[in-house]
């Protein structure tokens, strides 16, 4: 087990380099540069743009820039933001916690509602309840986040006046409710449907019939025998979703003025502030790797048939 973890950790290195390489060259392909965008609506004069390009080293060939970046990376230096001139690590650090918090709570909402819903509708297969859950799930994924977010904002903030519309509120939990729900609903739908599919598959297994023939209670059958078997798939999709939540919260963050990584990353792409983009991608890849490792390890805990050498 430990050697397996070590092997996986060593694999992190090529993956991280792979991602930096691909992203670096993809970004290089994009038209335009940061100097063009630095002035917002007030365009920066061409002469000043030239200065910026020189200062940021954008006039050097791409491989030279990449090697410089990698060299920095080896000393844990992610570079400096073109536009603000601050160190990338300083820019990223304050964004991590809000994103993480939002992702965890959204995923928790998704799990707490989605898994039981999926379970329930699998047990009530073919009933009206099942259909309603399915329709709910489909509307959950079909509804764009900005719709849901605005509707929630309208209902809870304007109409009921019980929750604030936007902002981070210094970490006041009241502020996280709406963004987390908005973010969680799509994942809830996905989890509900995935859970249902897995449970339906499990329910038709012979060993569930065996469990029934033993006279143990339905609750125990569902909670122990069925759930255990569906956990791998649920964990996989939850893990994947958590990974994507790290970087995929743009719409919600923008709508709710949430100080997360998502908006920063998207802005850095639009404004071609490539050191920031690279930094964000780095966080996301590390997040993914760690979560996937945890998920893979948990497979082994859940399923004795899976062994890692």
């Amino acid at each position, binding site marked *: 087990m430990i050697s397996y973890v070590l092997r996986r950790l060593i694999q992190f290195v090529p993956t991280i380099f792979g991602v930096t390489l691909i992203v670096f060259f993809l970004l290089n392909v994009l038209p335009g540069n940061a100097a063009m965008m630095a002035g917002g609506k007030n365009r920066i004069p061409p002469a000043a743009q030239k200065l910026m390009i020189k200062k940021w080293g954008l006039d050097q060939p791409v491989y030279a820039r990449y090697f410089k970046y990698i060299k920095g990376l080896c000393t844990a230096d992610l570079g400096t933001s073109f536009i603000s001139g601050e160190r990338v690590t300083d820019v990223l650090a304050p964004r991590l916690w809000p994103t993480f918090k939002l992702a965890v709570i959204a995923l928790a909402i998704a799990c707490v509602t989605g898994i039981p819903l999926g379970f329930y509708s699998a047990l009530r297969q*073919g009933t009206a309840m099942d259909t309603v859950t399915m329709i709910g799930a489909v509307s959950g994924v079909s509804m764009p986040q900005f719709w849901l977010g605005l509707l929630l904002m309208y209902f809870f903030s304007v109409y009921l006046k019980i929750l604030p519309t936007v902002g981070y509120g210094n970490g006041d939990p009241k502020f996280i409710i709406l963004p987390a729900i908005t973010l969680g609903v799509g994942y809830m739908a996905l989890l509900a449907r995935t859970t249902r599919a897995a449970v339906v598959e499990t329910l038709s*297994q*012979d*060993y569930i*019939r*065996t*469990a*029934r*023939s*033993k*006279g*143990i*209670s339905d609750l*125990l059958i569902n909670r*122990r*025998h069925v759930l*255990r*078997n569906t956990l791998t798939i649920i964990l996989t999709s939850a893990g994947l979703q958590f990974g994507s939540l790290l970087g995929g919260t743009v719409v919600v963050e923008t709508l709710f003025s949430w100080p997360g990584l998502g908006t920063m990353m998207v802005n850095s792409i639009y404004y071609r502030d490539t050191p920031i983009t690279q930094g964000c991608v780095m966080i996301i890849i590390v997040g993914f790797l760690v979560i996937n490792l945890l998920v893979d390890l948990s497979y082994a805990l*859940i*399923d*004795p*048939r899976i062994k890692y050498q």
Partner: protein
Amino acid sequence: MQPAKTVLNIDSLFTEFNTIDGTARAVNDVTFDVKRGEILGIVGESGSGKSVTALSIMRLIRPPGSIRRGRIEFFGRDLMGLSGDEMKDVRGNRISMIFQEPMTSLHPLFTIGLQISEMYIKHMGLSKKEAWEHAIEMLEKVQIPSPEKRVKDYPHQMSGGMRQRVMIAMALSCNPELLIADEPTTALDVTIQAQVIDLMWQLEKEYSTAIMMITHDLGVIAEIAQRVIVMYAGEIVEEAEVNQLFEQPKHPYTRALLEAIPKLGRRTRMGRKPLQEIKGIVPGLYNLPAGCNFYPRCPEARPDCRLSDISLIDLGIRGRVRCPYYQGAKA
């Protein structure tokens, strides 16, 4: 047939599956009983309704299937009248069941110890630790070597025969009055089959448990059953003492089944063949033929067999048969 001796008495059982394509009568007016200490064999091809009958007794029929009517009397008490919780106390405790597929019938993610312990915890109210010890004991009884080690194994670490032993251990753990074995040996290879059959035979003696042995393997029946019920398309077509059945099969279907076996009687070295040699297939349960269900395949069919439904003829000591022209009938 004194009531005291009867473990199970099934009376006019109908089990159906309702679908948009119509109603499938999987079990159609089935009546029989199981006596204490007896091994009752139920034979039939796939789809003849024997497994559904077994599941009906356990009340494990899942939607869209349902038991339409009939009585399932267990020691004189109708199981159909029990609540869900009361039924759970019967299941595993007083009636238990062994399934066909030892490979898939055990939960792959739990140790066998845990799966056996569940029985003790549920039905005997034992603590986890006590249950665990009982499980080891039970494994020993089903002749699993070094049970205190194997109890921590997961099913995938065991062979098919071992797993079926585990199933038997589990089924017998609460000393049930009735054991339903649904094709317990079909999935096993021949030598293992023999061991498992022997094991059941021994245990039946030790616990004096009534056994309902469901199989399509007449060899197994010949070996251990005392009485046999032959099912076809959801109906009982013949019931007889085992010797009678093999020596004087009455229903054409029974005869066809027996003819498919090279040699009668005890298991031989030649092994046994499945029953694939009867011409035709089991009719679809949605569109059963009028009259005798076996008519299309019956080598002795007569024109009037189609005209009206055939009822089961009680021959007293010679059993029952669903054919007016049965072998030995006074035509």
